[in-house]
């Protein structure tokens, strides 16, 4: 759902290209926007997502930092309070552990603690997702952590078009926003992206596929898994609806609940750990809102509760798959 009507060209872009386009447009639009992070300039990050930005915007705005995540994130918080709109790049979501004080005790609380006097318009881009054979410290999906903290907003886009529109909204937001990008999606996920300047508001879910028998709620890379499962379910006569919340906070509870009121069944699929995680929160919101319309409990599928292992057969076993979603959905639909 795009909030601007004037469409121009729509191209196929990868997830990574759409993110770069969003950043380039915002850098062009607002001189207060700058990028800070490790190897963001000439290298264009380890994932090459920012490649070329330094050529257009220069090293004063695309700024390579030392390997000091807490240092440059804290600097970003202060810069955001004093007139800039910094976009801080934390290469791997696993490194959130290194910046938690800056994010949780500083960025998230400054507006509230100051009685609304100071604002922190900071965007923190980081990554999530396993199956890159990167081991336990470069593969986690920790998006539940910031979602737990009042004062932060959390975005988990799944498509290139959503990523562009949501990132532009995040940069224009007056609050600290943590923006999670799935690493596998950077090159693998392609989709139509309008070339014009559009934004997608934070807090509006998107129904990626309509259906009547079961709702598959997916986040980030798990939206693709849900869509793949829905195609397979169609072949056995099950009509699955796929809903993507797109932002964990603010959360579009209404769209989630309405979908499940219609279908009576729901599986929530997320790449984070299920224990005390995003799936639990979404399942709870749905159960509270659609209790009398549910045929049975809302089911959850998340990462296996282990550190992400290195060996491919082990790592692959940690992430929910289309086949697993199909099997669970068939059980729930008795088909």
């Amino acid at each position, binding site marked *: 759902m795009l909030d601007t009507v004037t469409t121009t060209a729509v191209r196929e872009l990868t997830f990574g290209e759409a993110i770069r386009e969003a950043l380039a447009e915002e850098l062009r639009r607002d001189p207060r926007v*700058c990028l800070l992070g490790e190897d963001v300039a000439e290298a264009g990050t380890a994932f090459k997502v920012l490649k070329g930005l330094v050529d257009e915007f220069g090293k*004063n705005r695309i700024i390579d*930092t*030392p390997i*000091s995540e*807490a*240092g*440059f*994130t*804290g*600097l*970003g*918080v*202060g*810069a*955001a*309070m*004093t*007139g*800039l709109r910094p976009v801080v790049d934390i290469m791997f979501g696993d490194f959130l552990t290194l910046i938690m*004080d*800056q994010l949780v*005790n*500083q960025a998230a609380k*400054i*507006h*509230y*603690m*100051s*009685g*609304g*006097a*100071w*604002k*922190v*318009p900071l965007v923190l881009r980081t990554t999530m997702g396993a199956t890159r054979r990167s081991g336990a410290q470069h593969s986690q999906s920790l998006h539940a952590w910031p979602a737990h903290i*009042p*004062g932060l*907003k959390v975005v988990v886009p799944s498509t290139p078009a959503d990523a562009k529109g949501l990132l532009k909204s995040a940069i224009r937001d*007056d*609050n600290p926003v943590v923006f999670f990008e799935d690493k596998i999606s950077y090159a693998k996920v392609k989709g139509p992206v309008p070339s014009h300047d559009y934004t997608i508001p934070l807090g509006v879910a998107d129904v990626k596929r309509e259906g009547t028998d079961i709702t598959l709620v997916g986040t980030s890379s798990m939206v693709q898994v849900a869509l793949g499962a829905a195609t397979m379910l169609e072949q056995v006569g099950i009509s699955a609806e796929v809903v993507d919340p797109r932002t964990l906070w603010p959360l579009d509870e209404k769209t989630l609940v309405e979908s499940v009121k219609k279908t009576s069944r729901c599986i929530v699929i997320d790449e984070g750990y299920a224990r005390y995680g995003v799936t639990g929160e979404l399942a709870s919101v749905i159960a509270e809102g659609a209790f009398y319309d549910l045929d049975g409990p809302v089911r959850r599928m998340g990462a296996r509760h282990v550190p992400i292992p290195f060996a491919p057969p082990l790592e692959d076993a940690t992430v929910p798959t289309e086949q697993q979603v199909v099997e669970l959905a068939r059980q729930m639909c008795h088909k």
Partner: protein
Amino acid sequence: MNTVSNVKKSSDVGVDRLLHMYRQMLAIRLFEERANDLYTRALMPGLAHLYIGEEAIAVGMCEALDRSDYITSTHRGHGHCLAKGATPDRMFAELLGKASGYCKGKGGSMHIADPATGNLGANAIVGGGAGIATGAAFSAKYLGTKQVSVCFFGEGALGQGVLYEEMNLAQLWKLPAIYVCENNMYNEYTHYSETTAGEILARPAAFGVAAERVDGQDVRAVYAAADRAVRRGRSGQGPTFLLCDTYRHHGHHVGDISREYYRPKDEEQRWMSERDPIKLCEGWVSAEGLADGDTLDRMRAELTATMDAAVQSAMAAPYPQPHEVDQDVYA
């Protein structure tokens, strides 16, 4: 007593400026005495960390700043906020959790913030202001505003790694940041010699950050060092680190009454009688004939009346309404 005196003559600072700084120090002292009184009489929720004894640092530093320059403060922050221009009535209101306080009662003693005076906020995480202050210095350079940004912190923050990450960034990018280490010698209840390896000044030196040691009880010396640091910052020469030797007269917080197990009484007595920044300043004023006793008495009477009235107005002010609890979470 382990302090270095690089004191200039009072005339170098200027009579008006010295008297203004005396007034500011006295205001902080009288404010803090009332904060302690409110706590002792169980009229203040929570705790407060008093700045009594350290007034010359906040006052000397802020005397060299413009209103638009930035500061970050600490849990022991009332003095920094007042020296930067906060008004006592809204300060007391915040200490009491009242709606008219600087943070509408949501911050409390350790979180006073005020954009109008460039106060980015006191911070209850030790070293928590380092990133914010350095970021404000980054903005000032990026936007070409010529502002400087002062990060106040106690010597306890020397144990926090993020401080060194920020000093590295500030020196790499020649940011107009000033790191002011208030060494009152005690990390809470532990003497800093038990927590701090090597020479403190070797730490900024390792990054190439200009650093100097200052007698933190001599407001003239602090002002002179602050003025040099501010000039460095505004002229694009980068950050400065000031190590200010000082002493807190009271405990870690207002409830820290029995201190003999970590701090000898005769040490406290020596600092209070021989090294009190306000008494020292009074001595220079009198010895150099810069103002008569009546002038200082009048100043004290005026400030006493102001502080008493501020306490009264804060006591009479209403608490925030319960429905305000959800406000200001998001901008």
